[in-house]
């Protein structure tokens, strides 16, 4: 398993990806054959019956009812066949095995948050065990998002006020891209993450490691993954200001006042971003982070404070 991709499709890394691909290739090649037939006939007629005599008026061709009927019946059969096949695979893709390992996914502008039953929370990297069905229970905090892993051929919209879910079973260890495919605002294209598929043992080890209490700074570093779409830590301005080397300096605000970039300012910026807008920036930092726990905020503050 784990078929190599082609120019058309990325590597197929989930259990049903190959079935989707088989269907894709069937439709692809039938269409190609039909298409070439149409184009070939067109080009041939165009050249063969090119007008040479301006006065010629060709007689109408006697139309064959049989031929006309065949053009209707044959494609209909073809199309019904594809429909049934497509439906079958669709059912499989959308009915999760009952023994699936469950992960909660929260989509928010513009990051993914993964919550494991063991109490572990992760951003930007979703660890999953290989060879075991995984089910994602997904929900959005703000607007529509869509969760897409090309290598697994899965995609599902993530909706506020309703849970949607998808499942897959990774076939090989590796890192695979996660995209957000429902337009969700400014940094829609930055709402990325990775699936990290690892063996069962590695997965268990990872969970165990994550469950330990991290020192605040490290916790902050992990959490910062969801801020990275807008904040650089290398001094370059993105949608939001860079956050390194700022601690203790003066910060000019959009309303003209100046404050010190200290712990309180950072905390305030996270809990209520609109209250103190940095000069030269739009007040578009999401307010959703106010739901973070005190521990998480302390972690972030510690992390930002230490950034050089």
């Amino acid at each position, binding site marked *: 398993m784990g078929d190599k991709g082609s120019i058309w499709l990325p590597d197929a890394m989930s259990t049903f990806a190959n079935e989707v691909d088989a269907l894709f290739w069937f439709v692809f090649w039938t269409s190609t054959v039909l298409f070439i037939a149409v184009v070939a006939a067109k080009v041939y007629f165009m050249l063969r019956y090119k007008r040479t005599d301006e006065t010629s008026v060709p007689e109408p061709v006697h139309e064959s009812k049989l031929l006309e009927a065949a053009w209707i019946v044959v494609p209909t059969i073809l199309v019904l066949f594809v429909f049934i096949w497509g439906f079958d695979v669709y*059912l499989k893709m*959308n*009915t999760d095995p009952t023994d699936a390992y469950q992960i909660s996914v929260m989509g928010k502008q513009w990051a993914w948050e993964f919550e494991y039953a063991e109490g572990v929370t992760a951003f930007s990297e979703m660890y999953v065990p290989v060879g075991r069905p995984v089910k994602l229970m997904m*929900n959005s905090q703000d607007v529509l998002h869509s969760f897409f892993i090309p290598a697994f051929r899965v995609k*599902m919209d993530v909706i506020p006020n*309703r849970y*949607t879910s*998808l499942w897959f079973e990774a076939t090989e260890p590796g890192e695979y891209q996660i995209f957000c495919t429902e337009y969700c605002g400014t940094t829609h294209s930055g709402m990325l993450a990775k699936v990290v598929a690892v063996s069962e043992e590695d997965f268990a080890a990872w969970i165990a490691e994550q469950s330990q209490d991290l020192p605040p700074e490290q916790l902050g570093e992990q959490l910062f993954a969801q801020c990275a779409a807008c904040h650089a830590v290398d001094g370059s301005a993105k949608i939001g200001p860079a956050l390194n080397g700022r601690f203790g300096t003066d910060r000019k605000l959009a309303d003209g006042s100046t404050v010190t970039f200290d712990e309180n300012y950072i905390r305030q910026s996270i809990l209520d971003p609109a209250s103190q807008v940095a000069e030269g920036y739009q007040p578009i930092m999401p307010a959703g982070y106010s739901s973070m726990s005190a521990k998480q905020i302390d972690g972030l503050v510690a992390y930002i404070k230490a950034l050089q």
Partner: protein
Amino acid sequence: MSHAEHHISSIKTLTIVFGGLVFLTVLTVLTAQLDLGAFNVPLALAIATTKAALVVVIFMALKWDNKVNTAIFGIGILFVIVFISFTLFDTLNRGDLTNTTKGTVQDQQIQAEKLQAQEPDASAIQFNRTPQ
């Protein structure tokens, strides 16, 4: 054109139809007071449809009009039915596979609150006792 003569509805016809419409209105109001269980809605809709049909056929004279106009009207109604029924296929069956939940998060919360109201648990009782 064959139907150069326009149909003229007599005052008598119009009055009878009007009387029928009033009667049916009273009937809807009355039947709505009865408790017919699941039948209340279909009955009210059936009466409304009858009334609408009377207006269309006689007042709007579709009965004597060009058949094309009847077709136009019929197609319009048909597509309203398509719109409603195809949307209902979705909304009534939401969550038929495991890729979505049936209810919304809000519904689940309401449900949970209802259950809690029936059987107050320890924390709820305590809450009630806290002096406010």
